[in-house]
C-alpha cells in the first residue's frame, strides 16, 4: 500500500517551508534513515529522512517549491513488498494550491490582521517615504547590524548567535559581516554571560546580550536586576550600565510550562530598567535601535510566534523610535483595547469582529512596558470611556493589573464600565494542544470582554 510522505515541521511554530531539494527520484529504493529531501524555512534547514523501507512512487511537489504547508503530501512511497502502482497518488491528494491557510486565522498566529484605520506612526515620516515588507526577525537583525556599523562599541553575545546564525536566526549574517570579536558565541551559562555583558557595559562597551529565550534568563535575573538596573542609582549616577538584554519571551507553541512564560510584568516592576515589548517589524527595528543607543539598561522582549510575520518598515537610513511611547494602531470611539507584543495582533483581529457588530474599538500598542505611557492610555479612555487590556501572560500582578490601577487612580471619572483584563489562564502552560489553546488568550475572549464593557451581547 502507498505511504504518503508529508511536509515535515522543523519546529512547533513552523507552518510552511521551502522544499529545497530532492535527494531521491521516482523509482528509487530507500531504507529507513536515508535522506529524501532538504527542507528550509527562514529559521533553519533540515534533512528529511525516510522512516520506512520502500520505493519512491511519485514526487508530487517539485524541488524549489516555496510555501509548502506543513502536512501537505509531497510524495508517495510504496512499501517494501508492494506493487509499484500502489504508489500512485490518489487523485484527491493532488498538490493543494499554495494559498493562505484560512485555518490559521483563528489561531491568530500566522494571521496578519490588517488594521482598517490608518495607524498613527511616530515620528512623522517624510512625505513620500516608501516601505519594504520585512519579517520581525529581519527587522531585529537589521537594527543590530545598523547599530554595529554606527558604533564599534556595540557587540552581540549569547548562545548560538555566531556560527549557528542564531537559535531563531535573528542574528543571521552578523558573524560574516562583523567577525567573531563582535559576534560572540557563549557557552550555555546564562548567569555568567549576563554578568560579563553587564560588566562590559560598566567598562564602556555597548553589549547586546541575547537569551535564547527569556525563560533561561531567570538564571541570570540577578545580574539584570541587581547589577544592571541598580548600579546607576547606587553609584549616585556615576556608573552606568548601557546593556540590552534581548530574546523571545512569552508562550511559543507546544513547548510546555518551563519554556512558556511572559516576563514583562517581572521586569516592568523594577526601577532602573527600560522594558520594551514590540509587536510589528517597524517597531521592533526602531525600538531596538533606540534601546542599543540608550544609556540605560534595557530588557527587550520579543516573541517567537511573531518572528516570521511580515510588516511594512519605512525605508529610512535611520529608523529610530522613541522609548516610552505607546502607539494607537487602530483608532476607534467605543472601547479601548490596550495590549502589547503578540496580544496586539489578537486585539486587531478582535477589533475587526467588533466592527462587524457595530462596536468601534481603539487598539493601543503599549510597546514600552517601563516607563509606561499613561498619557496615551488615559487620553484614549477619556475618549471611549471603556477599556479592556489584552495580555498574553498571567493575570495576577500583570501589566493588565497595572493599567487597571492607572485607570482607577487617574481615569475613574471617565469610566462608564469596570475595566476588564483578558489574560492567559492562571495555570502553568500545559503541553496538550487542546489544553494549551484553552490556557492562552485569543481573539474571541477579547471580543467577549469588549462586548461586556459596552453592555452588548
Amino acid at each position, binding site marked *: 500500500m502507498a505511504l504518503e510522505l508529508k511536509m515535515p515541521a522543523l519546529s512547533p511554530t513552523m507552518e510552511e517551508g521551502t522544499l529545497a531539494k530532492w535527494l531521491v527520484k521516482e523509482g528509487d529504493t530507500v531504507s529507513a534513515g536515508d535522506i529524501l529531501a532538504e527542507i528550509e524555512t527562514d529559521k533553519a534547514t533540515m534533512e528529511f529522512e525516510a522512516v520506512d523501507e520502500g520505493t519512491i512512487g511519485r514526487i508530487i511537489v517539485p524541488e524549489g517549491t516555496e510555501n509548502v504547508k506543513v502536512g501537505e503530501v509531497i510524495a508517495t512511497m510504496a512499501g517494501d513488498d508492494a506493487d509499484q502502482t500502489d504508489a500512485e497518488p490518489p487523485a484527491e491528494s493532488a498538490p493543494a494550491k499554495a494559498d493562505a491557510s484560512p485555518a490559521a486565522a483563528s489561531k491568530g498566529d500566522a494571521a496578519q490582521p490588517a488594521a482598517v484605520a490608518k495607524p498613527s506612526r511616530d515620528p512623522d515620516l517624510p512625505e513620500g517615504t516608501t516601505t519594504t515588507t520585512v519579517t520581525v526577525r529581519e527587522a531585529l537583525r537589521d537594527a543590530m547590524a545598523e547599530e554595529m556599523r554606527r558604533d564599534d562599541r556595540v557587540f552581540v553575545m549569547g548562545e548560538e548567535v555566531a556560527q549557528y546564525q542564531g537559535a531563531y536566526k535573528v542574528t543571521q549574517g552578523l558573524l560574516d559581516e562583523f567577525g567573531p570579536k563582535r559576534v560572540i558565541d557563549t557557552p550555555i551559562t546564562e548567569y*555568567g554571560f549576563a*554578568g560579563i555583558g553587564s560588566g562590559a557595559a560598566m567598562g564602556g562597551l555597548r553589549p547586546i546580550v541575547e537569551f535564547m529565550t527569556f525563560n533561561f534568563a531567570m538564571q541570570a535575573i540577578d545580574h539584570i536586576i541587581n547589577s544592571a538596573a541598580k548600579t546607576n542609582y547606587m553609584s549616585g549616577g556615576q556608573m552606568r550600565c548601557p546593556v540590552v538584554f534581548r530574546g523571545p519571551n512569552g508562550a511559543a507553541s507546544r513547548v510546555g510550562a518551563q519554556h512558556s512564560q511572559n516576563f514583562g510584568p517581572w521586569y516592568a516592576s523594577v526601577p532602573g530598567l527600560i522594558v520594551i515589548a514590540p509587536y510589528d517589524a517597524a517597531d521592533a527595528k526602531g525600538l531596538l535601535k533606540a534601546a542599543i543607543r540608550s544609556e540605560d539598561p534595557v530588557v527587550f522582549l520579543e516573541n517567537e510566534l511573531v518572528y516570521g510575520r511580515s510588516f511594512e518598515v519605512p525605508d529610512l537610513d535611520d529608523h529610530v523610535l522613541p522609548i516610552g511611547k505607546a502607539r494607537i494602531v487602530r483608532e476607534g470611539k467605543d472601547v479601548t483595547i490596550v495590549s502589547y507584543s503578540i496580544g496586539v495582533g489578537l486585539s486587531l483581529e478582535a477589533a475587526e469582529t467588533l466592527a462587524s457588530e457595530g462596536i468601534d474599538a481603539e487598539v493601543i500598542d503599549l510597546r514600552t512596558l517601563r516607563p509606561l505611557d499613561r498619557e496615551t492610555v488615559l487620553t484614549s479612555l477619556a475618549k471611549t470611556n471603556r477599556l479592556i487590556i489584552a495580555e498574553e501572560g498571567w493575570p495576577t500582578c500583570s501589566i493588565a493589573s497595572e493599567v487597571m490601577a492607572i485607570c482607577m487612580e487617574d481615569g475613574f471619572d471617565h469610566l462608564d464600565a469596570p475595566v476588564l483584563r483578558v489574560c492567559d489562564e492562571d495555570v502553568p502552560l500545559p503541553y496538550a494542544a487542546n489544553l494549551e489553546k484553552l490556557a492562552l488568550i485569543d481573539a474571541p475572549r477579547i471580543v467577549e470582554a469588549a462586548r461586556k464593557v459596552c453592555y452588548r451581547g
Partner: protein
Amino acid sequence: MAKPAVGGKAPKPATVPSDAKLATPKHNREEAEFVLHSLQDEHEKSLRYKATDEELLNMYEQMLLIRRFEERAGQLYGLGLIGGFCHLYIGQEAVAVGLQSALTEGLDSVITGYRDHGHMLAYGIDPNVIMAELTGREAGISKGKGGSMHMFSTEHRFYGGHGIVGAQVALGGGLALAHQYRGDGGLCLAYFGDGAANQGQVYETMNMASLWKLPMVFAIENNQYAMGTSTARSSAETEFYRRGTAFRVPGMDVNGMDVLEVRQAAEVAFAHVRAGKGPVLMELNTYRYRGHSMSDPAKYRTREEVQDQREHNDPIERAKKELLERGVSEDALKDTDKRIRTTVSASADFAENSPEPPPSDLYTDVLVESY
C-alpha cells in the same frame, strides 16, 4: 611559607607535583601540570618583592590608613552613625595594598564585593568621601545612595562595591572583556572571598575567561570564614588556588599576611595575564580579625585563635618590624601613625557633619535619560 594555619586548613606542601600523580595514566599529564603550576613554581623561586625603603614605607602607611579608618568606622557604627551592614577589612590589609601596588594606575580596573573600604583607600580615594558614604551623606562617593557595600569610582577605574556574593566576578569578566575588546593592554583584578568561591557564576566566568583568554586576575581573599562557616565546613576543596584547574587557569598560593609576598605574586600573575596568556587565580591567605559584619556573634571561632593571628601574623606589625630593621626610626613611624590618625579623624568629622542628601535626590539617578 608563613601562612595562617586556621579554620581547619591543613598546611600546604611546598611543591605540588608528585611522582604518584605523574604516574597516573593520563596523556599530557606532565604538560598540564606544568601549565597549571608554572606560576606557583615561579612564585616560590622568589617569594618576596624587593621593595625600596620608600616603597615599603608607602605600603605600611596605606595598610595603617585602612586599619585606623576601619577602626573608626567600627566606632561610628557603634554610635549609630553608620547603618545597615558594615564589613571591616581589619587584618586583610596586605592583600589589597600588595595587589593594588602592582596595578597600572588609570588603565587596569578593579572590582570587589561588599568588604570594599580597604580597596578604595588602597587606591588613594579620599577617605572623606568614603566615610561620608558610610554615614549616608550627600558628600559621599555615591551621594549617600549606595552605602558601605555600594561604592564606585569610575575615575579610578574602581567598579565597586557589589552586595551580591560572587556577582563581582562575572562583572569583572565583563570588564576584562572590555580591556581585550579595546586592546588597551589593561587587566581586571576581581576580588572575592572564600565564601563567594562556592558560587556557580564564579566558575561560569572562569570557564569563559580561560576560553577567551581574558586579561583577568581572580583574587580569592581567603579569610578562612564565609560569615561564620569555616572553609573546612563549606568547601570540599579548601586549597582554593586549585579551583581553576578544571578550566586550565593556573593557580597561585600566596601568603596574604605579608604585603611583600602579595606584591611579588602580583608581579608574576600580572605579567602572565598581560602577555595574553589568559587569567590567573590567586589565593591570598589572610585573616579577618573582626566579625563578618558589625553584627557578628563571634561564636564560630575562639578568641585565642584571633589573638594568635594578631600577635604572630599581623601584616602591619610585620612591615613595621622590617622597616625598623632597615633603619627607619621609631620616631618617623610614630609621625606616620599620628598623621594617619589626624586624616581619619578629619574624615569622621567630615562624615558626621556633612548634610544628608536632599529629599529630591530620592528620584534622581534612577535612569540616565528621560523618556
